[in-house]
C-alpha cells in the first residue's frame, strides 16, 4: 500500500516532463530515455521520511527536500502492440489508461479508442478508465486487441449532478440516486417517467393511465403532504418545470390522465439524479419537500462528428382483456337475474316461504333454442380495440473539440394505441451547444422544441349517453350486431340512450401540445477558482384541444353537433446567477462556496369556446361560429405566480476524510400574504469516508465505506388561498335570461405560511471485495409541519373550506441498494436489488379537525377503513343488527356503539354505524422492490428488469362493474363474466355477496378493495452487437440490434385487470425490435 501522505514537488527537478496522472498521494512520471519507455517513479518527500516501503522498486533514502529516484530496468521488451477500447455499446472510449501489469508503463487511448504500447512476453494489460470497470487482459501474441469496457456501478470518480452544480460521487454527503441513460430501458417510451420504475430506491413509480403518454405518479420517500401535493420537483438542465398544458375537454368524454414530461424526448437524456434527503434538496428550498428529479440532457462527446440513428418498432397487445359475456352467456345471465328478482320480490325459496304456486309464475324471456342460437354474438371490445404500434426514430449528431461542444437531435415518435383511432405523435428537436469564447467566458445554449398531436380516445366514466368508448364496449349488449341492416348503428332497444361503442370512434378529439424550452447559460471565470454562472431560461407551452361530436353520435345528434375548443398556455421564466468559489488550502482543506439568486415567474392563461347546432359536420371545430347555439360557451382565465430566492452552499472537506455541506435557501412567493412571503430552508450534512482512515487500510475486502448524516428543511407552497376573492359563475336565470352571479370563492388567510419538512437522513455506502459488492443503505425520518391544506370550515359558513396550515405528519423509511458484479466464465452478470419502504402517519392534527369515531390523531395518512365482515347471511339466518338482511348479504359485525353523547361505549349497540368501522389496512405499500439484471456474453447482452410492490390494495373496478351494473343486465347491459363468484339461490357457496338484494349498510362493498401485491417483469431486453464484425466497414462505427419485451409478465394474485394501472384504458404488453447505428 502506498503511504497516504501529501508530497510536494519541487519545480527544480528536471526529470519531470509532465504530470499525467494523479494517483493516490504519490505522483508518477513517464520518463523517456533512449527511445524506451522506462517506468520511473518519483516520490518527493518533503520531510525526509524514508520511502522504501513504496510499492515499486526500492528507493534510496531521501535527503532533505530532494527527491529520490530510481530507474527501473526495462524487462523483456519485445514489441509494440495495438488495440482498441470500446464501451458496452460499441462506442470507442478515449482517455483509457492501459498499463502493463507489474510495471508502470502506461499509455492512453486516443479519440478512436486506439492505443499502442510496448509489451513483453506474457504481458498482462491492466485497462482502466473513469466510470468503467478495470480489466486485466493478457496481451495477445499477435493482432489487434479489442477490449470492451463495462460501466461500473459505483465508481468513486463518477460525477453526479447536484443542485446548481456537480460533485464527485465520492464527495456526496446527501442521499442521491443517479440513473444514467444507459441504465434506462431501451423500449420506446413517450416519457422518461415511465422508465424510472424500480430504478432508484425510495422512488415509487406508478403508472396511472395506460393510454399512450398516460400519466405516471412518482413519489419520492412517501407522500407525507396531505394537502399540497406530493409530486417531486422536476428540473431539466437547471430549469424547474411546472406541469404541462393539457386543457382537457369540457365535453362529456374525458381524455384521461397524461404525463407533463411527454414533450421531453427520452433519447436526449444523459442522466437523471434523484435527490432524496434534505441535504441534497434544501438548495431548492420551497418546492423541494417531495424530492427533486434532476434531468440532464446529453452533450457532445469529444472527437469528430458522430451521427447515430436509433430505430425502435413496437407492437402492443392487450395485457389482460376484460372477460365479458358472449351472447349465450348474456341471455342466460339475464334469465337468471329475472328469475332471482322474481324470487326476491315474491319471497320465494331462500327469500321467504311463499308458495310459488300462489304468485304469477316466472317465465323466461328466452327459449333454450334462442339462447343456444345466439352463440358468441358481438365482442364489442374487439370492435373498438386493436394491436398497438410504435415507431420511434431518433437521430443524434454530436461532437466536441476543445472549445466547442454540440449536440443536435431529432426525434419522431408515433404510437397507435390499443383503442382504435387513439394515436400519439411527437416530433421534437434539440440543440445543445457550448462554446468557450475565451479564457474566462463559456456560453451555452440548450434549446428544445416539440410538438405533440394526440387523437384522444373518447374515455369517460359517465353514465348513459356520456359513456366512453371503452365503457360502452364493456357494457353494450352482445346479442346486437354493430350495424343495423340499413347501415345505421345498432342501439339497445330498452336503453336507447346508450351509445353504440363503434359510433364513438367517429368523435374527433385532438390535443396539440407545443413546447419550446430554451436556456442560455454564461459561465465567467474572472479569476482562478471563481466561477460566475448566469442562466436565463424560458419554457413556453401551448396546449389546445379541439373536439367535435358529430351528428352521427347519439349526443351529437341531439345537440346538432358539439364543438369545443380549449386553449391553455403557460409561460415560465427563470433567471438565476450563482457565484462559486473553489479552493484547496494546504492540501488539507478543500472548500467550495456557492451563492445564488433566482427569480421565477409562472404564468398560466387560456380560454375555451363551445358551440352547437351546426348545419353540417364538415367543419369540425374549424368554423365554430357556424354553430347556432343560443348560448355558445366562452371563458378565459389568467394567473401569474412568482418566486424570488436567495441561496448558498458551503462544501468543506478536511483531509478528504471528513466532509461537511451546509446549505441555505430563502424563498419568497406571491402565494402568501405579507409577513409570510419568505420561507427559510437550511440544511447541513456530514460525511465520513471511513475507507480513508488508517484503521481500515488493512481490510482488503473493504474497497469503499462512507457514512453520511444530514438534517435539513425544505418546503412546499403548492396551494393558493391566502387571499380572498370573489368569482363569477354562480349565474341564475330570470325569465329566459342568464344573469351573471358572483360569490365569495375564497376566504383570505393572512396567517397562511409555507409547509415545512424537516428531514433527518442516515446513509451508509459500502464497496466490498473490490467493488464486486456494493451496498447503500439510507434511513430517513421526516416531519412535515404546518401542513398546507383545506381546512374544513364549520357547516354554517358560506364556504366549505379555506387554505390553512393543518397539523403535522411524519414519514419514516429506509432504502437499500445492493449491487453485485459477478463474472461466471465468459458471462458477466451485474445485478442490482433495490428495496424501500416508508410509513407515513399523522403526528398532530389541527385543533379544528374533527376525527371520526374510528380515527385516532396518529393514524397512518392513508387507511382503508371498513367494517369487520363475517361471511354471508345464510337462508333463515337472522342478524339482529341487520334487520333487513336477506340471504347472501354480507354480515357486518356490530362491535361498538355510541352513547347519547356520541361517545363510543365499547359495546355493540344493535346498529351498524361509524362506531363499527375499523382499520383494515394501510393504503401505502409496505415494500417497494426493483431488481435489475444485466448479463453479458461475448457480443450478447441481456437485461431483465423487474419492479414490484407489496402490501398494496386496489379497488377492483372489474368486479365493481359486475356489482354496479348487475341490475342493468335487464336493460341490455353486459357485465363481466363472473356470476359464478357471487351468491345467488343457485350458488349458495359463493365467496362474494348477493347482488340481487341490497345491503342497508353503506360501504358494505369493501370486498372490492383487494390485495394487489405484485412483481412485474418490466423489461426483458436482448441485444447483440454486430460492431466487431464490421471492422472492414470504414463508415459504420457501430451497429447494434436488440429485442425488448415490456411488461411481458406480472405475478400477482389480484383478480382485477391490473394491480397497478387504474383507469379504464387497457394496459399493454409491448414487443420492440430496435436498431442502433453509428456513423
Amino acid at each position, binding site marked *: 500500500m502506498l503511504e497516504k501522505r501529501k508530497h510536494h514537488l519541487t519545480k527544480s527537478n528536471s526529470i519531470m516532463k509532465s504530470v499525467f496522472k494523479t494517483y493516490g498521494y504519490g505522483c508518477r512520471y513517464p520518463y523517456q530515455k533512449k527511445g524506451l519507455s522506462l517506468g520511473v517513479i518519483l516520490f518527493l518527500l518533503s520531510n525526509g521520511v524514508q520511502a522504501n516501503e513504496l510499492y515499486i522498486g526500492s528507493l534510496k533514502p531521501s535527503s532533505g527536500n530532494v527527491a529520490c529516484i530510481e530507474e527501473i530496468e526495462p524487462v523483456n521488451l519485445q514489441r509494440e502492440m495495438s488495440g482498441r477500447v470500446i464501451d458496452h455499446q460499441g462506442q470507442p472510449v478515449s482517455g483509457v489508461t492501459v498499463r502493463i501489469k507489474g510495471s508502470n508503463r502506461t499509455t492512453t487511448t486516443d479519440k478512436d479508442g486506439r492505443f499502442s504500447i510496448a509489451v513483453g512476453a506474457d504481458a498482462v494489460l491492466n485497462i482502466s478508465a473513469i466510470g468503467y470497470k478495470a480489466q486485466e487482459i493478457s496481451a495477445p501474441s499477435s493482432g489487434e486487441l479489442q477490449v470492451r469496457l463495462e460501466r461500473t456501478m459505483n465508481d468513486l470518480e463518477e460525477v453526479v449532478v447536484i443542485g446548481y452544480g456537480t460533485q464527485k460521487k465520492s464527495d456526496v454527503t446527501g442521499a442521491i440516486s443517479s440513473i444514467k441513460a444507459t441504465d434506462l430501458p431501451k423500449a420506446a417510451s413517450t416519457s422518461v417517467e415511465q422508465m424510472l420504475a424500480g430504478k432508484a430506491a425510495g422512488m415509487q413509480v406508478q403508472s396511472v393511465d395506460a393510454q399512450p403518454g398516460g400519466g405516471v405518479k412518482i413519489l419520492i420517500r412517501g407522500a407525507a403532504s396531505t394537502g399540497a401535493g406530493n409530486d417531486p420537483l422536476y428540473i431539466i438542465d437547471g430549469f424547474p418545470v411546472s406541469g404541462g398544458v393539457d386543457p382537457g375537454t369540457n365535453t362529456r368524454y374525458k381524455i384521461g390522465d397524461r404525463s407533463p414530461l411527454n414533450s421531453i424526448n427520452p433519447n436526449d437524456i444523459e442522466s437523471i439524479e434523484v435527490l432524496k434527503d434534505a441535504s441534497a434538496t434544501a438548495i431548492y428550498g420551497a418546492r423541494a419537500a417531495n424530492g427533486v428529479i434532476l434531468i440532464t440532457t446529453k452533450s457532445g462527446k469529444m472527437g469528430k462528428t458522430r451521427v447515430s440513428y436509433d430505430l425502435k418498432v413496437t407492437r402492443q397487445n392487450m395485457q389482460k382483456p376484460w372477460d365479458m359475456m358472449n351472447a349465450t352467456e348474456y341471455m342466460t345471465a339475464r334469465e337468471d337475474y*329475472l328469475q332471482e328478482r322474481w324470487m326476491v320480490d315474491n319471497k320465494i325459496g331462500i327469500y321467504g316461504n311463499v308458495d310459488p304456486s300462489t304468485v304469477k309464475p316466472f317465465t323466461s324471456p328466452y327459449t333454450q333454442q334462442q339462447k343456444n342460437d345466439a352463440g358468441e354474438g358481438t365482442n364489442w371490445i374487439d370492435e373498438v380495440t386493436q394491436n398497438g404500434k410504435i415507431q420511434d426514430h431518433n437521430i443524434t449528431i454530436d461532437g466536441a473539440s476543445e472549445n466547442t461542444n454540440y449536440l443536435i437531435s431529432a426525434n419522431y415518435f408515433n404510437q397507435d394505441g390499443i383503442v382504435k383511432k387513439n394515436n400519439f405523435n411527437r416530433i421534437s428537436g434539440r440543440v445543445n451547444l457550448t462554446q468557450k469564447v475565451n479564457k474566462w467566458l463559456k456560453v451555452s445554449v440548450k434549446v428544445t422544441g416539440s410538438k405533440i398531436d394526440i387523437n384522444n380516445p373518447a374515455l369517460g366514466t359517465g353514465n*348513459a*349517453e356520456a359513456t366512453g368508448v371503452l365503457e360502452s364496449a364493456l357494457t353494450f349488449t352482445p346479442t346486437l350486431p354493430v350495424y343495423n341492416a340499413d347501415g345505421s348503428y345498432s342501439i*339497445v*332497444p*330498452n*336503453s*336507447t*340512450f346508450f351509445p353504440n361503442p363503434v359510433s364513438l370512434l367517429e368523435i374527433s378529439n385532438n390535443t396539440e401540445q407545443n413546447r419550446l424550452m430554451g436556456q442560455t447559460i454564461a459561465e465567467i471565470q*474572472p479569476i482562478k477558482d471563481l466561477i460566475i454562472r448566469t442562466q436565463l431560461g424560458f419554457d413556453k407551452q401551448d396546449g389546445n384541444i379541439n373536439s367535435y361530436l358529430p351528428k352521427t353520435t347519439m349526443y351529437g345528434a*341531439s*345537440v*346538432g353537433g358539439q364543438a369545443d375548443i380549449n386553449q391553455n398556455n403557460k409561460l415560465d421564466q427563470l*433567471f438565476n*446567477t450563482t457565484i462559486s468559489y473553489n479552493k484547496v488550502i494546504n492540501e488539507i482543506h478543500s472548500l467550495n462556496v456557492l451563492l445564488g*439568486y433566482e*427569480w421565477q415567474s409562472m404564468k398560466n*392563461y387560456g380560454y375555451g369556446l363551445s358551440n352547437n347546432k351546426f348545419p353540417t359536420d364538415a367543419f369540425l371545430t374549424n368554423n365554430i361560429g357556424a354553430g347556432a*347555439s*343560443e*348560448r355558445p360557451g366562452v371563458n378565459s*382565465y389568467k*394567473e*401569474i*405566480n412568482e418566486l*424570488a430566492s436567495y441561496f448558498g452552499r458551503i462544501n468543506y472537506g478536511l483531509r478528504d476524510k471528513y466532509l461537511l455541506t451546509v446549505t441555505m435557501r430563502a424563498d*419568497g*412567493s*406571491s402565494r402568501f400574504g405579507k409577513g409570510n412571503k419568505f420561507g427559510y430552508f437550511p440544511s447541513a450534512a456530514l460525511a465520513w469516508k471511513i475507507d480513508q482512515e488508517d484503521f481500515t487500510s488493512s481490510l482488503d475486502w473493504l474497497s469503499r465505506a462512507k457514512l453520511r448524516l444530514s438534517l435539513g428543511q425544505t418546503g412546499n407552497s403548492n396551494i393558493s388561498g*391566502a*387571499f*380572498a376573492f*370573489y*368569482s*363569477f359563475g*354562480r*349565474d*341564475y336565470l*330570470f*325569465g*329566459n335570461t342568464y344573469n351573471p352571479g*358572483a360569490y365569495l370563492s375564497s376566504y383570505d388567510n393572512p396567517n397562511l405560511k409555507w409547509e415545512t419538512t424537516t428531514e433527518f437522513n442516515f446513509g451508509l455506502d459500502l464497496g466490498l471485495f473490490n467493488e464486486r459488492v456494493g451496498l447503500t443503505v439510507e434511513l430517513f425520518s421526516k416531519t412535515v409541519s404546518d401542513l398546507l391544506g383545506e381546512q*374544513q370550515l*364549520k*357547516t*354554517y*359558513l*358560506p*364556504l*366549505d373550506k379555506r387554505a390553512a396550515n393543518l397539523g403535522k405528519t411524519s414519514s419514516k423509511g429506509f432504502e437499500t441498494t445492493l449491487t453485485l458484479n459477478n463474472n461466471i466464465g465468459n458471462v458477466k452478470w451485474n445485478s442490482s436489488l433495490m428495496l424501500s419502504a416508508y410509513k407515513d402517519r399523522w403526528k398532530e392534527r389541527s385543533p379544528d379537525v*374533527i376525527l*371520526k*369515531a374510528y380515527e385516532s390523531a396518529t393514524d397512518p395518512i392513508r387507511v382503508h377503513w371498513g367494517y369487520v365482515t363475517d361471511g354471508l347471511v345464510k337462508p333463515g339466518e337472522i342478524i339482529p343488527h341487520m334487520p333487513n338482511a336477506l340471504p347472501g348479504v354480507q354480515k357486518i359485525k356490530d362491535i361498538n356503539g355510541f352513547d347519547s*353523547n356520541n361517545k363510543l361505549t365499547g359495546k355493540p349497540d344493535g*346498529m*351498524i354505524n361509524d362506531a363499527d368501522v375499523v382499520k383494515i389496512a394501510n393504503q401505502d405499500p409496505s415494500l417497494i422492490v426493483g431488481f435489475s439484471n444485466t448479463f453479458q456474453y461475448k457480443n450478447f447482452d441481456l437485461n431483465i428488469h423487474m419492479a414490484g410492490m407489496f402490501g398494496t390494495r386496489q379497488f377492483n373496478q372489474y368486479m365493481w362493474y359486475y356489482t354496479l351494473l348487475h*341490475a342493468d343486465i335487464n336493460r341490455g347491459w353486459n357485465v363481466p363474466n363472473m356470476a359464478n363468484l357471487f351468491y345467488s339461490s343457485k350458488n349458495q357457496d359463493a365467496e362474494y355477496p348477493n347482488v340481487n338484494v*341490497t345491503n*342497508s349498510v*353503506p360501504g358494505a362493498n369493501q370486498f372490492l378493495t383487494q390485495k394487489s401485491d405484485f412483481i412485474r417483469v418490466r423489461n426483458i431486453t436482448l441485444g447483440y452487437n454486430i460492431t466487431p464484425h464490421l471492422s472492414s466497414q470504414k463508415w459504420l462505427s457501430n451497429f447494434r440490434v436488440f429485442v425488448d419485451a415490456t411488461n411481458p409478465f406480472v405475478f400477482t394474485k389480484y383478480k382485477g385487470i391490473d394491480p397497478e394501472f387504474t383507469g379504464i384504458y387497457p394496459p399493454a404488453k409491448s414487443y420492440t425490435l430496435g436498431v442502433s447505428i453509428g456513423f
Partner: protein
Amino acid sequence: MKNFNILLLFATTMFFSCENLEPQVFDKLNPTNYPKTEEDAKTLMVGAYNVLNENSYKGFGDISWQSRWTMNTATTDEFVCYWGGSVWETYEKFLWNSGSVHVTAKTYGPYIKAISNCIKIASQLDAMDNIKGETKKQYKAELKGIIALLSYTLYDFYGPTAIATDPEVINNPASDFQPEKPTKEWMIDYIKANGREAANELPEKYPVSEFGKMTKGTALMVLLKLAMHEKNWAEAASLSKEIMDLGVYTLQKVYISVFSVDNEMNSEIILAIPNLTTGNKFNSWLAHVLPSEYIEPNNIPVQQWGGYKVPWKMYDKFENGDERLQALWGKMNTKDGVKDLRSINEPWAQMGAVPYKYPADPASTGEAHGNDWVVYRYSDVLLLRAEALNRITPLSSEAIALINQVRSRSKASTISAAQFANGEALNDYILDERFRELFMEGHRREDLIRHGKYLSEAKSRGAVYSDDTRLIFPIPQWAIDENPKIKQNQGY
C-alpha cells in the same frame, strides 16, 4: 473583467426590480374592489339565488339521487324506479342511516350554507352606501324569502336545525361559535319571521325579465306550508286566503299547460325555477321518466332513460276522462303504435305509468328541456285551503267547492258533501286528490306525513324501519362529529 461585472450587476438589478410577490390573479375580484356599486350588489343577489338552480343536478329542479325532490318523492307510494339497484331501494324501504348520503348530501349542509350566504349578503348590502334605499329594501326582502324557503325545507327534513343567524359569526371564518340545535318554537318563529317580513316587502309580480325572483306569494306559500306542517288549520286558512286575495293567481285552463314551455310564467305559478335548454340550467324530467321504448312522434330528440314511474295502483286512482291523465300515461307510442303499457309483458311496462309531466320542449337537446320547474302553484293553495277548512269545519262547503274548482279544470267529475260519511272521509279524499293534482311534484312526503300515512305506506312496501323516528331524516354523522352540541335525531 470590470465590464462584465458591471454587466452582471446591471442584469441582476434589472431582475430584482421585476420581482412582484403580490398575488396576480386576473380573473377574480378582491374585497378591496368588490362589492361597491349597485351593479355589484345585483351580481351578489344573483349569486344568492344560485342555490335554487346551481345546475340541473343541484337545486330545486334537481330530481336525481340525493335531491330534495327525490327525498320527498322516492320515499312515497307515488314513485317507483325501473333502474333498480340499492339507491332506489334505500329510499323505498327506508334503509338510510346517519352515514347515508341519500338523505343528506344535497340539502343539509348546502342549505345551511346558503342561509348563511343570504345573511352575509344582507350585511354587505347594509354596509354599501352608494345603493338606493329602495333597492336595498327589495334585495333584503328577497334574501329573507330565500331564507324562509330553505329553513322550512330543513325543518321539514331534519326537524329544528342548528343554523347560524348572526352576521358577525358568519363573516368570520375563524369563529369558534357552534350553534345549538334550536327548539321547535324557535325554528318555527324564525321561518315565520323571515317569511312574513319578506311577504310584507316583496312585490306580487315582476316584469318578465325578473321572473323567478321571490314574490309576496312565494313567501306566503312557505308560511302556508309551515302552517299545514304544524297542523295550524286556522292559520293555514287565513294564509291561503291571503294568497287568493292577492288576485294574481288563477288556474290555467288546461292542466298540462301549466308545465309546458310555451306557457311559461303563467298565472298559476307561485314559484318556478327558470330553465333553458342551453347552459347548465335545464329541465331533465323527460330523460328520467320516458321509457327507452317510447317513440317521440315529433322527432324531438328527447332523452329516454326510463327510470321514474307512478305505480299502477296509484294510476288507478284516476277516473276515465280526467284530463290530468295527459300528464300520466297508461299508454304510449311505441314502435308498434300506441299501446296500453299494462299489455306489454316487460318489467319496464309492468312497473307503472309514465308521468309525462313536462311536455317535450321542441328546442330540446336530448336531456335538456327549457321547461321552467314548478315548485309551488295555485291549485296546491286551493287544495291546502280545502284541507284546512275541512279540518276546521268537516265537510265545509267551501272546501268542496275548492276541490271541485280544481277537478273541473281537468274535466273530472265534481263531488258533493253527500258522498262523504264525515270529514275524515273527505280528508282521505283530499289526500288522493292532492296526488291526482300534484303527483310527482315533490309534495307527497309532506302530505302523507300530515295525513299520518307515510309510515304505513312504507311498511306495506316492505320497509322494516318505519317507526315514528323515520318521519324526519337523520342529521349527517359528520355534522354531529363537528358540533357536539347537536344531538342526533332520535332513532338514528
